[in-house]
């Protein structure tokens, strides 16, 4: 196991990048603590897989360094970095049995057969594949194949980091849940550093202790799932995480007070000085229907069973509210109230309001 440090990492797939847009990764500085469970979350094409491939050594970054426990590994090929990676689509060696598949990474490194037998048995037991060990891997179902791929990633106990590149994409929904909790359990058992790449917020939030959110080749926020949910550092994080995502309303700032559509909106606290494009961010969970407040017209109500998501129009802006109990019907005029301590102001996308400390 090792601590992984990324220093001033930049990468471009072009031969001669000039503008910042030419870079798939724009200046990444990051520490991955030993034994942590990390998720790398972001929409497709944001550079997650590029970052992963740089850590594993499949890609050499255009600029910057990668350190494992302080040792520079930037130029080392994947097999010398002592890492394991599980891919989006199951990679199994068709002609081998399940046992040989799991033993493959060990045998390639000259581990003796007794030790191989012990490790394969352990991993097979963890993944519930013990009864399949003698089968040919080609005949397995996709989720079992992916389990074997994961097993090959986990079978070596001397790896620095195990990386998962959207490993549950091809798995049936009902098995996703099982494999996801299995992974979490495995992490608690083996305590290896794990990096889990996904564009699925549920996967990221359930698996990881720390979530790294990426957008357009940049890290937008790093935090625990709770931090990301409660205080998104960027409107992108607010919008990307949560279902539905955070409401982002165009706002004007006058004398330190925020106005939306002419209505004053109370914020969580003071706003830092500066100018730019202002937006108010409020999660649907903290928008309520009230007797007085922002006037709006209900457009649509979605019953999600546990609660209703009310979509209302205030002026031309859509605002979602999560309402417990009876919901208004479409067309009805309502008033919306925002919980002030959860209402934040963003300037050019980044958070600009600060939380008032309760005295």
């Amino acid at each position, binding site marked *: 196991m090792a601590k992984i440090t990324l220093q001033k990492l930049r990468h471009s797939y072009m031969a001669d990048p000039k503008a910042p847009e030419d870079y798939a990764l724009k200046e990444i500085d990051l520490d991955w603590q030993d034994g942590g469970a990390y998720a790398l979350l972001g929409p497709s094409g944001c550079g997650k897989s590029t970052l992963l491939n740089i850590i594993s050594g499949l890609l050499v970054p255009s600029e910057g360094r990668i350190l494992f426990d302080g040792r520079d590994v930037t130029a080392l090929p994947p097999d010398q970095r002592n890492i394991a990676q599980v891919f*989006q689509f199951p990679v199994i*060696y068709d002609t081998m049995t399940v046992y040989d598949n799991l033993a*493959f990474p060990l045998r*390639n490194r000259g581990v003796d057969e007794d030790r191989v037998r012990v490790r394969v048995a352990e991993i097979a037991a963890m993944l519930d594949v013990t009864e399949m060990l003698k089968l*040919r891997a080609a005949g397995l179902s996709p989720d079992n194949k992916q389990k074997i791929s994961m097993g090959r990633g986990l079978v070596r106990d001397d790896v620095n980091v195990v990386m998962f590149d959207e490993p549950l994409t091809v798995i049936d929904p009902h098995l996703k849940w099982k494999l996801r909790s299995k992974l979490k359990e495995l992490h608690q058992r083996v305590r290896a550093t794990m990096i889990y790449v996904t564009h699925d917020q549920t996967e990221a939030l359930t698996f990881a202790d720390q979530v790294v959110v990426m957008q357009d080749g940049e890290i937008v926020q790093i935090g625990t799932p709770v931090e990301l949910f409660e205080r998104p550092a960027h409107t992108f994080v607010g919008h990307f995480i949560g279902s539905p995502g955070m409401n982002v309303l165009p706002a004007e700032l006058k004398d330190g007070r925020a106005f939306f559509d002419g209505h004053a909106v109370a914020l969580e606290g003071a706003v830092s000085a500066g100018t730019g494009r202002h937006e108010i961010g409020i999660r649907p969970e903290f928008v309520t229907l009230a007797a007085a407040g922002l006037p709006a017209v209900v457009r649509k109500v979605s019953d999600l069973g546990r609660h209703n998501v009310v979509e209302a129009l205030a002026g031309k802006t859509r605002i979602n509210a999560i309402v417990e109990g009876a919901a208004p019907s479409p067309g009805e005029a309502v008033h919306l109230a925002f919980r002030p301590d959860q209402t934040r102001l963003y300037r050019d996308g980044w958070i600009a309001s600060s939380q008032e400390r309760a005295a």
Partner: protein
Amino acid sequence: MRKVNHRGWFFVLPVLILVAFNALVPMMTVVNYSVQETFGDNVFFWQGLDWFQQILRSDRFHAALGRQFLFTGMILAIEVPLGVIIALAMPRQGFWVPVCLVTMALPMLIPWNVVGAMWNIFTLPDIGLLGYFLNHTLGINYDMTQDPVAAWATIIVMDVWHWTSLVVLLCYAGLVSIPDAYYQAAKIDGASNWSVFRYIQLPKMKQVLTIAVLLRFMDSFNIYTEPFVLTGGGPGNSTTLLSIDLVKIALGQFDLGPAAAMSLIYFAITLLVSWLFYTLMTRNDIR
């Protein structure tokens, strides 16, 4: 009762007619000849299975069959591994891909008789580019018109030149269909180049390789034009392959009965070997 619409048969009719004229009618003509004797004038005498017995017992047939298996065995032993190696060495992306593909496809676009004529002129000992070079520059005594070994070497090199591309292109198609993740996983698993070939590339190529071997077997087993134009079956009978012998019997000696019997036996052998090979190669696939 379910009503059956018999008009559906009309849709099958074109295929039936095509197959009938393409395969069944000519085949039945051959069967017809193979059990009769004729001295011309369209007069036939019933002969039973005599021709088949005669062919199966004839030393001439055994010799031609032996030469045929030797030829097919040798070209398969060269073309298949060579084709795999070239396919592995070809670039997977970039500017050189179309260049390589077109270069590879070129020999296959040349008609058989032209290939034979080309190689004939190319290898003639005194005027051919290769023949002259070997004899007069390198001082190697090479004459494919006189020396059976030289004749064999020439027809084999010619076939390798003409048809290795087929194996290459089929294998290449198999190789490019392997997702990158397999190679990346293998790198991370610490697999050697040999392991990558043995456990990733070869299994993924197996199906196309089966087809490639099958096509090359059938084609080379039935080969006629190229050796006929190049050596005419000589020197002596040394390169008289089955089909050349067949034509000699049928059109040279005009023994239609024995020739028909021989072509049916020939057909049966080709079919049997192809079937055996295909069954053996695919028997493990369904599990």
